[in-house]
């Protein structure tokens, strides 16, 4: 009998090899207690969190918590049903209204996760005979959405406007075209030249979908993302987003001005064939989204944190994913997996949690220590973090 698990042998061996060096397993950390958006207890030690997507620090907001408690009391722990049957409560409509207000768009559709939002919208909108043109560094949920659908899939080199232009130009006349871009690419923390790319896509008659998961709440004048920042949001056909980052809970969504958008509720399988979000989750999301609308001070502080940490790490001699800070993600490029894991462990011992990121999540086979800042990190915490990187980097021999 062929063992169906033999395809994982290479990865099993690599993992065993890494753990045999005595390093703590970077992929099985448990947070025993969470004290605030920026501090948790890991292995009995207070640890500063620099590897969450809690960009706006909404997870412990008193209004958000209160809304969740109230919904739990009033509507129970779960819906036990699909959005199109018994799974739409007042709270689901309320959070969709909050999204329409936040983005100033006509339609909003909420999914159970951000992953499912990409899976559902992409596989449903682009069908057989249509073409999807997408950035090669797209998130796994985008690729899986392509795989679930029947469209022809054509990738282009990361952020390469002319490569995208050429591919769009060669698509057979009359075929439907969907261009998929991200506002912020979460591995290196770089942003897309959406102004130019959306113009090129529109020039070829393509519809445009932009995933703004890592920009909501703090990029753009109203926190609507990179497309808003670059002045092209009105030309984007579909914005995909998530509740699991700045909003501080879980869930995904798509907002759009397409006049026929609502039909998707009946034909989009990852929307129909799954249970809807629990009432407490949509209540916390709606409250959080409305608070994010006037989060200007928090936004400014988050950007200040990002600039301070980026400048200091660069100054210490670390190799970073971007020349200048473009988002709340600062990616530190490690020379290899072994030293990446050693650096990750040294930082954990210092009392700092960051993400160790590896292929297939990372581009070009890179090992990254990915830092994501929070608006609730104090200036003092950021200085503490810099000191930790300095000591750990020198101990491991990376700087």
């Amino acid at each position, binding site marked *: 009998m062929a063992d169906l698990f033999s395809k994982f042998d290479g990865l099993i061996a690599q993992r065993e090899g890494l753990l045999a060096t005595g390093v703590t397993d970077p992929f099985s950390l448990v947070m025993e207690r969470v004290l605030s958006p920026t501090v948790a207890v890991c292995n009995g030690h207070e640890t500063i969190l620099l590897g969450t997507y809690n960009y706006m620090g909404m997870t412990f907001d008193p209004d958000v918590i209160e809304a969740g408690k109230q919904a739990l009391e009033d509507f129970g722990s779960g819906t036990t049903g699909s959005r199109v049957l018994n799974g739409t409560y007042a709270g689901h409509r309320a959070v969709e209204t909050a999204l329409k207000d936040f983005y100033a768009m006509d339609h909003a559709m909420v999914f159970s996760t951000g992953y499912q939002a990409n899976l559902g919208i992409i596989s449903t909108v682009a069908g057989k005979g249509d*073409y999807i043109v997408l950035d090669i560094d797209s998130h796994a949920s985008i690729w899986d959405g*392509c795989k679930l659908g029947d469209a*022809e*899939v054509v*990738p282009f*080199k990361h952020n390469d406007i002319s490569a995208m232009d*050429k591919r769009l130009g*060669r698509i057979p006349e009359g075929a439907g075209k969907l261009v998929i871009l991200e506002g912020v690419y979460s591995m290196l923390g770089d942003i897309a030249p959406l102004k130019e790319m959306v113009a090129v896509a529109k020039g070829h008659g393509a519809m445009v979908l932009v995933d703004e998961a890592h920009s909501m709440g703090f990029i753009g004048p109203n926190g609507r993302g990179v497309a808003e920042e670059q002045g092209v949001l009105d030309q984007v056909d579909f914005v995909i987003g998530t509740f699991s980052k700045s909003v501080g809970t879980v869930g995904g969504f798509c907002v759009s001005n397409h006049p026929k958008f609502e039909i998707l509720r009946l034909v989009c399988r990852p929307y129909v064939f799954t249970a809807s979000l629990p009432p407490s989750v949509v209540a916390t999301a709606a409250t959080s989204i409305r608070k994010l609308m006037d989060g200007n001070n928090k936004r400014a502080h988050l950007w200040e944190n990002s600039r301070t940490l980026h400048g200091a790490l660069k100054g210490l001699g670390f190799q970073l994913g971007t020349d200048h800070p473009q988002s709340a993600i600062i990616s530190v490029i490690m020379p290899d997996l072994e030293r990446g894991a050693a650096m990750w462990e040294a930082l954990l011992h210092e009392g700092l949690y960051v993400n160790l990121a590896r292929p297939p999540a990372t581009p070009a*086979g890179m090992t990254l220590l990915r830092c994501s800042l929070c608006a609730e990190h104090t200036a003092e915490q950021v200085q503490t973090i810099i000191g930790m990187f300095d000591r750990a980097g020198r101990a491991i021999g990376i700087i």
Partner: protein
Amino acid sequence: MDRAATADRIAALIAPFNKNGVAIEDSSSFAGDLEFDSLTVMDFVAAIEDEFDIIISMNQQAEIETYGQLVDAVVKLQG
């Protein structure tokens, strides 16, 4: 363009990606013999697309494992 001429042009495009100097035959596989990883595949496909002004979707690439299959596909895509 006939098959031989297309094959010659593709062979020339493979050269810079053929790091181990593997002798190319119709049966040479990109993943096995040439050891192309996913990034190399992307750059190589881009070079082929630009040379012949065609588009090779990932769906089509899934059917192309060898040099010979690529030559056939490019001949067909050029019409």
